[in-house]
Every structure is written in C-alpha cells, then in structure tokens.
C-alpha cells in the first residue's frame, strides 16, 4: 500500500499528536493516552534538566556513552530495562483496571486496549527481558570466565545502541502516532496494509528488526566470548553453570533471531512494497508468518529463562554453601532444553488447521521439555539439601521461583495437550500460564541476579529489609494477579478482550487488579530499595569484593572491579575455583610480576549508530523517504570510516596495575574476615571466612 511522494514530511502531520485527539474528543480514553504521552515528555525534560543541573553531560559522554567496558554496557542495559519495565508494568495495570471496571465497556476504547496489550507484550519481551538478561550477562560473564572483556567490545556497544534506539521508537509511538494493535506477535493479514494502513504495525516492524539485529550481534558476541575467552584451565566442564546457560542462550539467539527478522521484513515487504507473502489474496499465505514467527518465538522464551536457571544455580550454591548438585546433569538438561526449544514451535497454533498427527507430534515434543526442567528442579532441591542455607534476598527469590515455577510448568504441560489446548488456547488461562513462567522464572531470576551481583558492580550491598519487602510484594502481587486468570480462563474468558458481559468474571477481575496494584508497589519498592541502599552505602561497602562467600572467579577481585577486571589472568584448576582456593587458603595470591594490559579505547560508534538508526526507523514509519535514504547512506559511511581508525587500543602500564592491585591486597590482609552469621551486618566488608563445616 505504497503511495510515494506524500510530501516533505511523508505522512507526518498534526493529527499524529495525541493532543489533537484530546481536543477533538475529550474522554477518559484520550486522557489516559495523553497522560502517557505527557509522562514520556516530562521524563525526557526531567532527565535533560537533571543532567544539565548537575553538569553531567561530559561525564555521561566520556564515562558511559562512549565506553566499551562490558561492565558499563551491562549496567546501561539494566538501567534501560528497568525504565522499560516501569512502562510495561503500568500498562499491565491499566489493562487490569479496564477489566476490573466490570461487565460493559470500561473506560478505554477497544483500539486503545489493543495498543496496550501490543506494547505491553513487545516491551516486556524485547525491551525488558532481553536487555535485562544480557545486561546481567554483560556484567558477569567476562568476570566469571576470567576474561578482560567480551570478544568484541565495540560490537557490544553497537548492540546496546541498536536495542536502545528501537526501545526509544516505542516511546516515540506514545507521543507521535499510534502503536500497532496487532499484539506482540503482529499476525498478518490483520497487520497487513489492507487492514491496518496506519503507522502502528510499522513502528512494531522497525523496532523489532533493529533490536533483532542488536540482539543477534549480542548472541554472536557471547557465544564467541565463552567459547574463546575463557581463562587458562577453565575447561567446559569447569565452566560456571551460569555461563553454560548464557552460551546456550547465545546459540539460541544466533539461530532464533533470523526467523524473527525474516518474518518482520517480509511483513514490511507486504506493507511497503505490496508483496504477497502473507496477504489474503494473490497467493499469500499467513500460516508462513505463524511458522516463521514462532520458530523465533518459542526458542525466545528459553533464551530468556535459561539464564535465569543459571542465576538460580549460582544463588542456590552460594547461599547453601555447597557445590552445585548434579552439575553434569544440569549441563545436559540445559543443552537438551536448548535443542528441544526448536522442536515445539507449532504448539502456538494447534488450532490453525494442521492434521491431528502433526499436533500430536508437537504436543509430545512440548511435554518432553518437562523432563530436563524437572531434572533441574530436583538438582536445585538437592543443592539445598543439608546446605547451610541463608535466607538472603536472592535466595528468597529462588525459593519463590521453585514453588511458583512448578505450577507454571504444570499448566504448560496441560496446554501441551492439543485436546486441552483446543478448549483454552485463546483464553486468559494461557495468559496466566505464560505470566506464571515469565514472572517467577525470568523476572524473579533477574531481580535475584540484581541483588546478588549489585555489590560486585557498585561496591556496596543492597538494603536487605527493602529487598525482602520487594520479594514479598512481587510474590503476593503475582499470585493475586495471575492465579485468578487461570480460573476465568477455564470459565472461558477470552484474552485480549477489552470488555465482557459475564458478571461471574467480575470478582476474579477485582482480585487481579488488587494484585496489579501490589505489583505496582513492588515496582516502587525496587526503587525505594535502591534509594535507601545508596543513602546508606557507607555502612554496606564491600571493597574486598566477596560479600556472599562466593564460589566463582568474579568474587576473587575487588568491588567494583578495575577496568581490566583481573590484574593477573587466573589459572583455573577447579569447577568452583575461588571456593576451592579459599578452602586451601590459597585465595588472594600475590603475583610475581605484572604486565601491561591492553584495553579497547572508547568510541562513539554505538551512540552514533543509535541516533542514526533511530532517525532511520522514524523516517520509514512516516514514509519520509529522503530521510530514510540519507540515514541508510550515513550509517554505511560511518561504519566504513570507522574501520579506518587504527588507534583502538589503550595500554594500562604494568606499574599502574601493580599499584592498584597491591593497594587492594593490603586492604584484603587488613580486613577482618566475617562469618556467615554477620553477612548482612556492616562488619561484612567483603572478606568471607570460609564456612564452619566444609560441605562438598
């Protein structure tokens, strides 16, 4: 549905602003839309104002935006993910509120509700879960494997830039024009040009394509990092469990992101160039879209949850003061899940007309995933068994996960049965199921990781009390919000419906909105915990770097770590190398000699590509062809010119490394080692006394 030559600004005009709708038709729906747009604008103004007030532009540019340090890139990913999480959660609350308004039409229009569930899904998957998972991985993986950085530090910065620019497109869609109403899956022909001539699906397409490129590059980067950058002696069977899950996740990305790119780009060809891949007429076949999309979509949930499994594996081992039980079986289970995740995509459309045999095959393949997952759950339970368990915040997330995730897994096995799926596939039962695996699975895991590795990243611990409050709020909020949805789903309430007329759904919807409000409190509680922790940071500093009696290499260096991570690259002799060194009394060795360290020099390429790709996407969405062409040429030119730059390395002299490292070693020897009973007290300065009983 192209109509070229629509003027200098393409199809962009004043009607694209939400305020136009408010003036023409003031009602609750428009007020909500305008409030959302206003929040975005106010947010931008506040951020710009604060940065200017505190004169932070220069440090922001010099220390962060141009940094290629994996640690800083990881932190920026997590900050971005938390900002997007706030938007995603609030959208969920608005949706629950709409349904809690009871039978009838509520306060939102159908179109607006459809935009809400489309952005909510898109944001939560692509701009919260993925950046959060790879933000944590960015920070932790090189430290865990004893590396100075990831394999391709500059590419890493570019990945971040592309992810952020596409996330910004979703923010822009709140203010200029409208987002898609086609759900996060954007099924054609509904999202095709014939049904949806507006800009909504185009926002979706370009955000997905650009962030998909960023994610693919990240996947390549981490697969290569873990494969090639491990410290000497770290064989694959000595790799920390978390790194195993990240390498599996990276492999999933390498193979699963292309189907998404293909699906989105073919949809773009249909919309922009009048092709017939997924149209209703002239030989188009929308089932091809369903297959392509879910070839990505199914592995996607495993590339999110596997790293969470890895996080829980580290957390359970550390806070039980035990070696991870059944390491080999966990590795095999992780790999099995990674492979099986590619064999089940068709269960997302059991009801779309394939034969019973095909459905049965995919149903059984789906149920098979329960086996390695079950192995994992038993391994974690056996890790806890007779451990010296401390109920720290990450551990509490882990325990909540163990119980709630099993329920989510079981409802998944129920859904894997095609006959059952025919009854419940498009009801809130399904919504309850995937929130039941994604919240306790992925989100709790990420929050556990945030609490677990925060002292490593910033040099002080997070507040325990507010951490516990946050765990309680997330858990209760999750239960209240999503358990009722199982019931209404079984009662036949369709998902994605902005209104209903069966009064028997209403009580459940009331419980769900109460839960949604508790989740909102949980979100604020995360921020309060951060604020309180920063305020009290002098009492919780852990400069020595090992507050939890950790077992893996990242705990053997200072907190926060120096830019080069390891003064001397360690030689690994054991699976839990640092724990073994502490047992033998060989932790914190004094090196014989120091060497110059080469680090990649700062570059602005990621930021430049972030801006250019953002403008490029905007131009494509609004059909400003000249601008899109200009941006395409500029992006290619910038990359070419950039490859001519040779001064990419920076050398840190051995003398400087020696000075820093010796100062830290002196500090290590000066501190008093604390027992685990004082883990949360100010006495814990990050030097752990190995535990009372040595349990293997």
């Amino acid at each position, binding site marked *: 549905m192209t109509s070229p030559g629509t003027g200098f600004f393409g199809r962009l005009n004043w009607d694209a602003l939400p305020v136009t709708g408010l003036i023409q038709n003031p009602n609750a729906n428009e007020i909500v839309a305008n409030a959302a747009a206003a929040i975005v604008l106010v947010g931008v103004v506040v951020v710009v104002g604060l940065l200017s007030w505190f004169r932070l532009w220069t440090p922001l540019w010099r220390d962060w935006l141009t940094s290629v340090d994996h640690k800083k890139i990881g932190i920026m990913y997590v900050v971005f993910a938390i900002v997007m999480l706030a938007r995603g959660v609030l959208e969920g609350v608005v949706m629950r509120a709409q349904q809690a308004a009871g039978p009838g039409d509520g306060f939102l229009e159908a179109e607006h509700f459809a935009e809400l569930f489309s952005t909510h899904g898109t944001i939560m998957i692509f701009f919260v879960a993925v950046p959060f998972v790879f933000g944590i991985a960015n920070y932790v993986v090189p430290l865990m494997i004893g590396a100075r950085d990831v*394999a*391709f530090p500059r590419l890493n910065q570019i990945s971040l830039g592309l992810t952020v620019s596409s996330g910004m497109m979703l923010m822009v869609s709140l203010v200029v024009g409208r987002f898609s109403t086609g759900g996060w899956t954007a099924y054609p022909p509904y999202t095709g040009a014939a049904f949806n001539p507006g800009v909504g699906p185009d926002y979706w397409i370009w955000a997905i394509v650009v962030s998909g490129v960023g994610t*693919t590059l990240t*996947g*390549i*980067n981490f*697969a*290569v990092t873990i*494969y*090639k*950058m491990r410290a000497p002696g770290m064989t694959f069977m000595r790799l920390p469990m978390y790194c195993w899950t990240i390498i599996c996740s990276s492999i999933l990305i*390498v*193979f699963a*992101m*292309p*189907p998404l*790119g*293909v699906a989105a780009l*073919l949809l773009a*060809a*249909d919309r922009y*160039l*009048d*092709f*017939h*891949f997924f149209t209703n*007429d*002239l*030989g*188009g*076949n929308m089932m*091809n879209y369903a297959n*392509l999309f879910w*070839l990505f979509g199914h592995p996607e949930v495993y590339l999110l949850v596997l790293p969470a499994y890895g996080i829980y594996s580290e957390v359970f081992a550390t806070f039980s003061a035990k070696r991870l039980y059944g390491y080999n079986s966990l590795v095999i289970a992780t790999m099995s899940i990674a492979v099986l995740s590619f064999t089940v995509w068709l269960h997302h459309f059991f009801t779309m007309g394939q034969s019973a045999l095909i459905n049965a095959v995919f149903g059984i393949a789906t149920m098979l995933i329960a086996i390695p997952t079950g192995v994992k759950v038993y391994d974690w339970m056996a890790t806890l068994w007779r451990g010296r368990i401390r109920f720290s915040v990450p551990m509490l997330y882990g325990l909540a996960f163990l119980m709630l995730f099993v329920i989510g897994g079981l409802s998944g096995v129920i859904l894997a049965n095609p006959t059952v799926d025919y009854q419940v596939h498009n009801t809130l039962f399904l919504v309850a199921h995937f929130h039941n695996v994604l919240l306790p699975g992925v989100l709790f895991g990420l929050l556990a990781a945030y609490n677990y590795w925060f002292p490593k990243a910033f040099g002080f611990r997070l507040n325990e009390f507010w951490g516990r409050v946050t765990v309680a709020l997330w858990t209760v909020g999750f239960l209240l919000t999503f358990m009722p949805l199982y019931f209404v789903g079984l009662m036949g309430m369709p998902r994605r419906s902005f209104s209903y007329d069966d009064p028997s759904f209403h009580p459940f919807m009331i419980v769900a909105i109460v839960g949604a409000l508790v989740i909102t409190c949980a979100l604020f509680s995360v921020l309060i915990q951060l604020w309180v922790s920063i305020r009290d940071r002098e009492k919780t500093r852990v400069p020595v770097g090992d507050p939890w009696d950790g077992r893996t290499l990242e705990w053997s260096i200072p907190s926060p770590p120096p830019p080069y991570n390891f003064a001397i690259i360690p030689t690994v002799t054991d699976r839990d190398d640092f724990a073994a060194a502490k047992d033998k009394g060989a932790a914190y060795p004094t090196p014989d000699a120091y060497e110059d360290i*080469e680090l990649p020099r700062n570059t602005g390429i990621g930021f430049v590509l972030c801006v250019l790709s953002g403008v490029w996407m905007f131009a494509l969405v609004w059909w400003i062809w000249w601008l899109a062409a200009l941006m395409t040429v500029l992006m*290619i030119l910038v990359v*070419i010119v950039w*490859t*001519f730059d*040779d001064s990419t390395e920076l050398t840190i002299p051995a003398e400087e490394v020696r000075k820093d490292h010796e100062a830290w070693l002196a500090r290590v020897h000066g501190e008093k080692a604390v027992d685990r009973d004082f883990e949360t007290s100010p006495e814990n300065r990050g030097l752990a006394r190995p535990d009372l009983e040595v349990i293997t």
Partner: protein
Amino acid sequence: MKRAPTHSYPGINLGERHASAHKATEVVTFGFWVFLMSDLVYFGLMFATYITMIDAQAGGPGPHELFDLKSVFAQTLILLTSSLTVGLAMLALKYNLPRGRIVLWFGVTLLLGISFLVLEVRDFMAMAEKGGIPQRSGFLSAFFGLVPLHGVHVAAGCLWLIVLGIQLHVKGMTDVVISRVVRLALFWHFLDLIWIGIITIVYFGGLTYG
C-alpha cells in the same frame, strides 16, 4: 619463496612472534563463522518460503515463462570464477606475494561480482517485462524475496572489496587488514554456496516442480 609457519587458518601470515595477533584473528574469524551461520538461517528460511509458495502463482506467470537458464548459467560461471579469484588473492597472501598481487585479484573479483549483478538485474528486468513482478503473486514475492537478497549480499561484498582495496593501499598489510581479507574471502565463498542453493532450488526446482 619462503613458507610461512603453521597457521590456525590458511592464508594468515602473522608469524610466530605475534601470538596476541594470532589469538585476536582466531577469535574474530570464529565470530565471523558464527555470523555466517546466523545469515545462513535467513537464507534457509527464504528457501523454505520459496518452496512452500512455488504453487502460489495466482494465475500469474510461473518459472517456465520467466526463467532464463542461459543467463543463470552465465551468472553461475561468473560467480564460481570469482570464488577462484578470491582464492588466488588468499594464496597471494599466504605466500607473501607483493601487495599488488592481492589488489589485482581483488580487482578481478570485483569486476566479476559487478558483471554478475548486471546480468542478474537484466534478468529481473526481463522478468518484469513478462509480467513477473513481485506484486503479481506469492510465488513471485518469494522469488524476489530470495534471489535479490543474495544479490544484495554480492553488492555488499563488492563494496567491501573496494573498501578493503583502499585499506590495503592506505594502511598496507597490517594484522587487522589481513584478518579482514580472510573474512572477506569467507564471505565470498559463502555467497557462492548460497548461489548453488539458488540454482538448485529456485531455478531447477522451480522448473521441475512449479
């Protein structure tokens, strides 16, 4: 001609003294292989789409009316020859021949790449004259989603050849440039492999089945 010491990858003459350069090249080359695997999935899915849509001609022209095997044969010869010339550039690199030799083979490869693209575009134009435009049917959409995608890759390879030729001239045979030459060669051979898939599945498969 002196033989270079043992290599992790053929064609790299970084020497024993440059352990770190070797390591860096190994990492980058491996990363590029992973990227190619990812790209291969793109092509694989476009092949699958083409196969499922081969019958979706919606009454429009099909393979028998549109495909010109003579031109496709010529394109195949040109592309396979270009793989040979890239290989010769790599051999020049491996045996420490003067830089001019690499640039020469790069130039020949570039000419072959461009002639391939010219023939391909002529084919597309001939198809369009017979009504074979991508907007006509699902089959043609799938054809034009796949074959030009390969063409775009070839065009990107040509751009890469030009940029690397300039870098060889400006920077000389630095470790970084050599490692880029290695990756360009990998990429170019990859394009050949995809093309083999295209003649087999798109053209022969189309004519046999469609």
